[in-house]
């Protein structure tokens, strides 16, 4: 059985003549918190779009849970997605947004709420279920988006810069909650970010620069490999 939940092999991608991903290969091991770290414009969101099928794969292979992305009905079935941009419907209440998303995953309204009953409490969203999303603050909206991504009990959770625009407390509340999911539910996480303080030394990491993976592995191993003091120095060394 494959120990990787996500695998990209030799992926190239261009917007017209501009190549943004150049022979990208990386993987996410099952039950790990994996960070894709890179500066703005490095190609992180393009990778995210390819994995989620928002962009069509041009060359290379993507496998999710042993299914090629072309077989999307199986490959995308067990993933949860949190986009960088807000994607909740502002005119709907939290519960209505959850019902809508659940239906896209083939669940009835009742099944939807049952599937996330515990997580609603853990994310402290019980009191806002009937609130219109427009009336929620940024932190609450983000938590709702994460809750929504868990509706179908995914095996892999993809988060594209999920803490952008949030205050420090909200950022780390969300980060800690997601890390806890790995421990509790053995969920695999792909956390895409450019923020170093969101990375732990035991995390799996892939460092991307200008559409190329510069290195991957466990953070502390990579830091040791390049004989640097910390991740920031290692990153600066790799992307200089």
């Amino acid at each position, binding site marked *: 059985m494959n120990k990787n939940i996500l695998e990209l092999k030799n992926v190239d991608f261009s917007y017209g003549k501009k190549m943004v991903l150049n022979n990208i290969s990386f993987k996410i091991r099952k039950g790990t918190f994996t960070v894709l770290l890179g500066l703005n414009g490095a190609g992180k969101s393009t990778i995210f*779009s390819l994995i*989620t099928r928002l962009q069509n794969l041009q060359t290379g292979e993507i496998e999710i849970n042993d299914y090629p992305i072309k077989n999307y009905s199986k*490959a995308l079935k067990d993933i949860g997605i949190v986009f960088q*941009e807000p994607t909740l419907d502002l*005119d*709907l209440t939290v519960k209505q947004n959850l019902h809508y998303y659940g*239906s896209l995953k083939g669940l009835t309204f009742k099944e939807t709420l049952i599937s996330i009953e515990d997580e609603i409490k853990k994310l402290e969203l019980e009191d806002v279920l009937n609130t219109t999303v427009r009336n929620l603050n940024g932190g609450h909206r983000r938590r709702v988006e994460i809750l929504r991504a868990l509706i179908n009990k995914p095996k892999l959770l993809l988060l594209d810069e999920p803490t952008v625009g949030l205050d420090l407390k909200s950022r780390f509340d969300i980060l800690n909650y997601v890390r806890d999911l790995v421990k509790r539910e053995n969920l695999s996480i792909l956390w895409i970010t450019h923020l170093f303080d969101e990375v732990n030394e035991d995390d799996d990491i892939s460092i991307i620069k200008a559409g190329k993976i510069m290195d991957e592995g466990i953070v502390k191993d990579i830091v040791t490999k390049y004989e640097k003091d910390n991740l920031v120095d290692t990153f600066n060394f790799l992307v200089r």
Partner: protein
Amino acid sequence: MKKYISCMKGIIYKELIRFLKQKSRFFSALVRPLLWLFIFSVGFKTALGLAITPPYETYITYETYIVPGLVGMVLLFNGMQSSLTMIFDREMGSMKILLTSYINRNYLLFCKMFATAIVSTLQALAFLFIAKWYGVEISYYGILITIPVIIISSIILNAFALFISSVIKQLENFATVMNFVIFPMFFLSSALYPLWKIKDSSILLFNLSSYNPFTYLVEAIRFALYEKFDTQIFLVIGISFIISLLMAFVGFKLKKV
């Protein structure tokens, strides 16, 4: 099968909630055809004589004549607005949620168009009831049997709108769409005047109107409202339904994010 039903239900549910919450959208969609009915038709009826043509069996007032065309107007505007929203949302919003589903994308697009058609149908029905109250001769039974025709017509227009807004970048703006798509489609049809009247004035415009699918949608609504059936019209509607959906699916797929 359950996932497809649940998906359709969810998309319709969301569109209906949005429709109920956005009351201003509902009223503005109604005001447009009502202005034409209450003001334009009053001024215009003296200038236009109407002969007895199918499906009508007697002389009719001009208000009665333009009601099916104005139903078409409701569907046309709604379809265009909704399709442009889908294109914008693809790049920045809730369409992303739809597009990353594991369910077939064409089916999801169809559900979205069907849900929009339901909302358009509610608006069209509200307009028809007001028109009946105003004195236009329509029977409740006629309205009832027009509902499926309105839904199918709306899906055709939504699909067509999705196609053109996908493939023509310059049309990502509603004002441009009004000038270059909605108005030509609407005026080059039998919505405001019978085709034989156009033929009297210009053969070219008559020919253009005869090839305009919107003409057939308006005529299908007209025939259904008066409980009549015309094979040619309904054949064109059936073919338009299939072709417009195929165009929408292909156009959306080709659209660059």
